[in-house]
């Protein structure tokens, strides 16, 4: 009995994984097929990228600020208060910028995509699209994938910058540190590997957000309740995957760059 349930659960997981891979693969293959509809990509880029700027600015700034606040005390104990800037910039660029932006955009857009596509599924708009001879993977999924990957890349950079500035503001105005020393230490010790790591992560996270959001949206079943379920699952799964893949990518990068 229990074995049966386990069996079925395992089979379902494999089937879902297969569907997920098919959806992502086929959506991406549309990138290389002419004509490419840039208009759909721009519309999505606008709603995902521009729409997310305020939350990315706010979280970035306060994260940088709190990092400076919390670490400067410990660093000063060892007489190393001068490298507060370095610590903030390392943390922001390699970890917190990409991860927090990813989580924020996941909460905002993975849910948005799942509920939008889910509603289109339950009102048969996706079937109507197929019946009218156009591919929903090309019209709906591909533009969201491309737009999220590109936009998250720039949003993460924005978050890094605002975070370092937020840390600077705290260091200077609240901790009384020297501003030029802070900014000097924050970029002086950065090497290519750190920046590269910080730029690779948002590309993966963007892909996770859009593909998971679209996957749960496109596999919505059972009316409005199903849309709610798809939305929640999309946010939960994409957030967990972002954090898990962050670990994997970090480990890989340390392997490659040695830091």
């Amino acid at each position, binding site marked *: 009995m229990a074995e049966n349930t386990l069996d079925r659960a395992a089979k379902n997981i494999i089937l879902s994984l297969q569907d997920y891979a098919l959806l992502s693969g086929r959506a991406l293959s549309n990138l290389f097929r002419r*004509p490419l509809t840039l208009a759909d990509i721009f519309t999505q880029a606008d709603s995902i990228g521009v729409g997310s700027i305020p939350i990315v600015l706010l979280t970035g700034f306060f994260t940088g600020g709190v990092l400076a606040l919390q670490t400067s005390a410990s660093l000063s104990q060892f007489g190393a208060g001068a490298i507060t800037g370095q610590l903030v910039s390392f943390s922001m660029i390699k970890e917190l910028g990409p991860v927090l932006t990813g989580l924020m955009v996941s909460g905002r857009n993975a849910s948005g995509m799942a509920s939008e596509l889910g509603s289109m599924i339950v*009102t*048969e*708009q996706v*079937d*109507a*699209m*197929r*019946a*009218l*001879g*156009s*591919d929903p993977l090309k019209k709906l999924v591909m533009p969201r994938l491309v737009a999220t990957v590109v936009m998250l890349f720039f949003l993460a950079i924005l978050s890094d910058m605002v975070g370092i500035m937020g840390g600077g503001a705290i260091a200077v105005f609240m901790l009384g540190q020297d501003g030029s020393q802070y900014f000097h230490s924050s970029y002086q010790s950065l090497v290519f590997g750190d920046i590269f790591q910080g730029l690779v992560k948002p590309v993966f996270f963007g892909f996770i957000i859009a593909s998971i959001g679209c996957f749960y949206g496109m596999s919505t079943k059972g009316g409005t309740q199903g849309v709610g379920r798809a939305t929640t699952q999309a946010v939960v799964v994409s957030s967990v995957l972002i954090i898990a893949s962050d670990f994997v990518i970090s480990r890989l990068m340390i392997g490659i760059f040695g830091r």
Partner: protein
Amino acid sequence: MADAAQAEQAAGKRETWSQTHPGEPVVVFDGVSLRSGGHTVLDNISFRVMGGETRIILGPAGVGKSVLLKLANGLIRPDSGTITVFGENVGRLREDDLFTLRAHIGMVFQEGALFDSLTVRDNVAYRLNEDHVAEEEVDRRVREALRFVELEDTIDKFPSQLSGGMRRRVSIARAIISDPELVLYDSPTGGLDPITSTTIIEIVVKQRDFYNSSSLLVTHRLQDAFTLATHRFNDGNNKMEKLPDGKVNENTTFLVLHEGKLVFDGSTLDLVHSEDPFIREFIE
């Protein structure tokens, strides 16, 4: 009537599939079965639709009528049996080839399924825009299609601003804008008042008699089914009229589904004279 004549000319210019394949059925269901979550939705269904024929599908709620139309359009694949549309096995076609095939099939969904983020104009023009048809031509054809369903003045509205019956008619306009040879109507009059229903049936009759398209039509309203069978389109006054002497349209025939099986396949007269207790109960 000038543009109607123009449209006729345009329709006549292109060779249709039934013209190049005379005597071949447009749609063939052969032993089609579909199961869903352990129960059988459709069980060994076989029938055919010839060129210019209208087949009315009747049956109680939940018997699988909508599913049957989706199967015909390749939106769902059958578990067994073959479905042939325009000579192609839709159960086996790749999705890309299905998109090509569907260029000749119009579908009206049960709930309309209009794109709620697009205006009526963009909904109706969807197919033309996808094919990158020139702007002026799109405009002309959208107006023509909307005039056909008598909704020209809604062109800039959004679907949420329309009544149920209007949405249904926009959905018909969207389905027929590319002059499809096969139209699949899923309950086009479901949940509508008798007057609006008659307007919609008139559109279906016009599409049948004026453009000679083949169709599969699901309906819950027996009355509409009989109107379809006993009326013809008069292009002189652009109205539907009753056939003289109580005659029925030879090309309009019936399919009745019951508990997943096809229990009736025949003409209007056969249907009204059927002895089958289920059919008797259903049509009375």
